[in-house]
């Protein structure tokens, strides 16, 4: 037995010695596609339809209820198709795939090989966008809710909310908001998980570079699922924290808010994931006065930009829920449409990608801050723009805004913080 085992190991070792690493990380094989009778010969394009499919965490065992991203896409396609589609073709969402148990890569491969889609729209995955490299390798125009770092550096992947995500990078927005609010002492809370802890480091570095306030309390030792923050709140209160920035989920933020109220802590929270009317309405007394950063024009924007008016109209018409996730689906679909329009009647995947990457001021009819796709795929941008809302009696009220200009913009990583922001 032992001899046989050694023999097997020896063979494996010899194989290892004979090897080197491939430069490529996955296959670049192409997918089949149906040709049309028109000038367009692209996978997923027929003479009367453009096939699109997405992958979203719908029933993930670890909870990712993002299915309404599909609703946003379908509502946008309804609008386009009601006007005759594009280039006499209907936009059709042919596949609504479920990112079940981190199966993102297989689902992405299924979209390309089984569903024969022209573009992937939307992507909304709770943990891991493992199919990103496959999509990038095959040059597939891809649009989705960017909450995963895998979008960064891939010119064919377009996030509806952000181009490239860097949780641990220095940013100017939060120090500027602290300055506007007159807050002086910052508390930062994060889970002991890589992305959460990285986010906390990013906040700390931001305030070190732009010292509008001092980070006097920082913890990265929370367990995911912690519901008790009594010690942390007690320590923050002792240190006079007046502005709490977190990198935790809504359950954590809610329990933190309840503990802050319990201990009569005079501070507000910046809620990273809190733009959800149902969440706020259900817990209005705990989130009162809190600030929420929103990467798209908030639903409360007045006057509402054209994109928001259309979103409301078509979502209501289809009976879909309007929320952060569905609007990201809508924006994703709008970006694809804009790419198709820009690519012209003889569009190709490459032309769509090239056109979008040439845009320096994409706003999706006012739904997103001006986005410069010549730089947006990398983590340093020209400007950093965010819309803000404040929680007031269970409702969101736009703040740090100007009429018709919901986004407050600052240079990204300036040497010093400007005295004034611009509004877009």
């Amino acid at each position, binding site marked *: *037995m032992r001899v046989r*085992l050694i023999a*097997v190991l020896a063979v494996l*070792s010899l*194989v*290892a010695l004979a*090897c*080197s*690493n*491939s*430069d*490529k*990380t*996955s296959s670049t094989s192409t*997918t*089949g596609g149906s040709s049309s009778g028109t000038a367009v010969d692209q996978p997923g394009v027929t003479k009367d339809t453009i096939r699109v499919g997405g992958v979203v965490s719908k*029933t993930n*065992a670890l909870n990712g*209820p993002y299915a309404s991203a599909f609703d946003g896409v379908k509502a946008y396609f309804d609008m386009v198709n009601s006007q005759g589609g594009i280039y006499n073709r209907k936009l059709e969402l042919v596949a609504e795939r479920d990112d*079940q*148990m*981190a199966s993102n*890569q*297989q689902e992405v*491969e*299924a979209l*390309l*090989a*089984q569903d024969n889609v022209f573009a992937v729209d939307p992507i909304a995955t709770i943990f*891991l966008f*493992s199919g990103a490299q496959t999509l990038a390798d095959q040059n597939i125009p891809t649009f989705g809710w960017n909450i995963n770092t*895998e979008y960064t550096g891939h010119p064919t992947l377009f996030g509806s909310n952000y181009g490239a995500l860097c949780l641990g990078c220095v940013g100017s927005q939060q120090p500027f908001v602290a300055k506007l609010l007159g807050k002086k002492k910052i508390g930062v809370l994060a889970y*002991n*998980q*890589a992305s959460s*802890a*990285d986010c906390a480091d990013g906040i700390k570095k931001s305030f070190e570079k732009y010292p509008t306030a001092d980070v006097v*309390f*920082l*913890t*990265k*030792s929370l*367990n*995911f*699922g912690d519901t*008790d923050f*009594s*010690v942390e709140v*007690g320590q923050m209160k002792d240190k006079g924290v007046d502005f709490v920035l977190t990198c935790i*989920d809504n*359950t954590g*933020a*809610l*329990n933190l808010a309840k503990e802050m109220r*319990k*201990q009569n802590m005079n501070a507000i929270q910046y809620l990273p994931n809190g733009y959800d009317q*149902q*969440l706020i309405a*259900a*817990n209005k007394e705990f989130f009162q006065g809190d600030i929420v950063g929103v990467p798209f024009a908030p639903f409360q924007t007045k006057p509402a930009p054209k994109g928001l008016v259309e979103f409301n109209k078509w979502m209501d018409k289809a009976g879909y829920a309007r929320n952060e996730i569905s609007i990201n689906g809508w924006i994703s679909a709008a970006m694809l449409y804009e790419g198709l329009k820009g690519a012209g009647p003889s569009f190709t995947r490459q032309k769509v990608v090239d056109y979008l990457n040439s845009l320096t001021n994409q706003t999706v009819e006012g739904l997103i801050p001006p986005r410069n796709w010549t730089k947006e795929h990398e983590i340093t941008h020209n400007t950093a723009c965010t819309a803000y809302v404040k929680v007031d009696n269970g409702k969101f009220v736009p703040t740090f805004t100007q009429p018709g200009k919901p986004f407050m913009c600052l240079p990204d990583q300036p040497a010093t913080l400007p005295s004034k922001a611009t509004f877009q």
Partner: protein
Amino acid sequence: MQDFIRYVILGIPVGCVFALVAVSLVLTFKTSGVFNLAFAAQAYLAAAVYYDVHVRHEWPIIPAFVFVVFVVSPLLGFILDRFVFRWLRGASPIGKLVSSLGLLVAVPQIVQIWLGKSQTFGVTGIWWDDNALYHFGDYTVDGRQMAIVVSVVVVVLLLVALFRWTAIGLQMRAVVESPRLTELAGVNADRASSAAWMLSSAMAGLAGVLLAPFSASLNVGDFSVLLVSAIAAAAFARLTSIPMALLGGILLGIAQQLLKGYLPPASVAAQGLKPALPFAVLFLLLLFWPGLRNRREALDPLAGADPPPPSLASAVRSAAFTRSTHILGSLFVGFVVYMALVRADTFWLSLLTLTLVYSVIFLSITVITGMGGQISLCQATFAGIGALTTAQLVSALGANVIFGMLAGAVVAAAVGALLAIPVLRLAGIYLSLATLAFALMFENVLVPIGWIGGGVSPVRVPRPVIGPFDLSNNKSFFVFCLLILVIVSILVIFVRRGTTGHYLDALRGSETAAQSIGINPAKAKVIAFALSAGIAGLGGGLLSMKTGLADPRMFGYFFGFVFVVVVVSTAARTVEGAINAGMAFVLLPYILSEWLGLSSSWAFILFGLGAIQYARHPEGTLENGKRQSLAFFQRQFDKLSGRRDRSSEGGSGGSTASQSAHPVAAVEST
């Protein structure tokens, strides 16, 4: 001193949350003999029903509470008893543990399908005002906490009274210890068992309703996290004492607050120690707490020795039929390889490759569970160790990826051996819990360290080039994975046929008897653990090559649960079973969604339901079905070949002499 008192007092409400779960676990174990990991699923189901009636249908709190805790939850308990656990009364605790794991995987999926895609915000608790504040000197608790503290105290008092002074309490405990003796004394064991399950399920329902307001939106993950944290308190109670479970929960809460209070919040120590506390405590308790070490699991004096496991399916066929199935099997494998390499598109080639990769990982469960008879809940962790080692060696040191993969297997094997040494004295569910504690410690302490877990972005892993073969070509990689699977399968078969395999067989039967004939159980178990971990690590490395990245989230503790459930629901004892499990895990969700138009969640529901059958069919549901179908075909085969009906001989009576004597060899030859 003032700070110390402050943290102690702050720890009591937190501890009561742990205690609520721990008391439920102890209650279920005490009254049913099941270490009920499905508690999280039951509590989640109760919370979901409470949300539905109270928030969606606007029932007042009291009717909603009564409906959930006193109707729905006991009904669920009755169903679980009647259709699942009553049939497992004589099963080993580990069989019951696996059944509860199956429920943990299946039930939340059913609930999610029922709840639909909307978020579940705004669950309020049962206290008349969740947000009311109650001041005790400098300390304040809110309505949610008051509800838990009061409920826990009341429940503990009632349960203590129930078990100390009532006949039904005594009967429930008696049924667990020896249903046959209990029935001899004139007690209706079925009724007592149903009462026990209804009671423990009501307790899970109470926990679900009490804990729901702590979640912004209902999520089974929150219940699962709390469950695994509270196991330490249940272990402190030796899984038997309800007052001790309360005390254990409170002590755990106090310890957590003391760590939070005294460790500088931004320190590395805080980041490492505080999140690991419940799991480290559990691990230490399992190793050193008197009453858990060497605890006898079978208390039934009439239980006697476990009967030998049923013979493998392949043992019920004749030599001629075996040859026929070998030919058919070879043709099938050839067909699959042909389809993969010639006909399959990129998607199906990818799925088939993934099937091979997961089959390798699942072979590790064949070793530890099928051969060793133990349930390890950290096989996904070992796979993660292999994947992360591969990735870090390649990215940080520029190592050859094949070398990285082999090194990953060696590191995983070494970790497995190191883990095996302290947990050797444990058996059954205690060993399983120790492996769970290890998985959670790895996830919470080591993975957050950048050079281990890889940080925010997953570490990329390239495909290797072997001589003229560039494995970035998917077909070449498929062949490579097939080769690895064949090698590992042969290795497993060799081990099984060899001394270690026979030692493990003997140890499964009777450790004392095995020792009496000179078998060293420690050595055999360490080898089994190390081999199993090494195989999982190898599979993890292979998986990282397949996906092109190594991300610890792909190997979280919940995957460890799912892996076990998938393998035991197919067949844990054979190489063929591991491959079936690989196929089921990868292909079934797609078959259901692509061909039947069902949600892929149904695959996990099926796996869960399959695992529930583990205690009845420890060979696996598929293996059981295979035995029956083989027996049927054997009869047809005999008829065709003019032989007498072999079914009358029973078992493997008609096999060739060598097969009868060594049924394992028959399946290995497949």
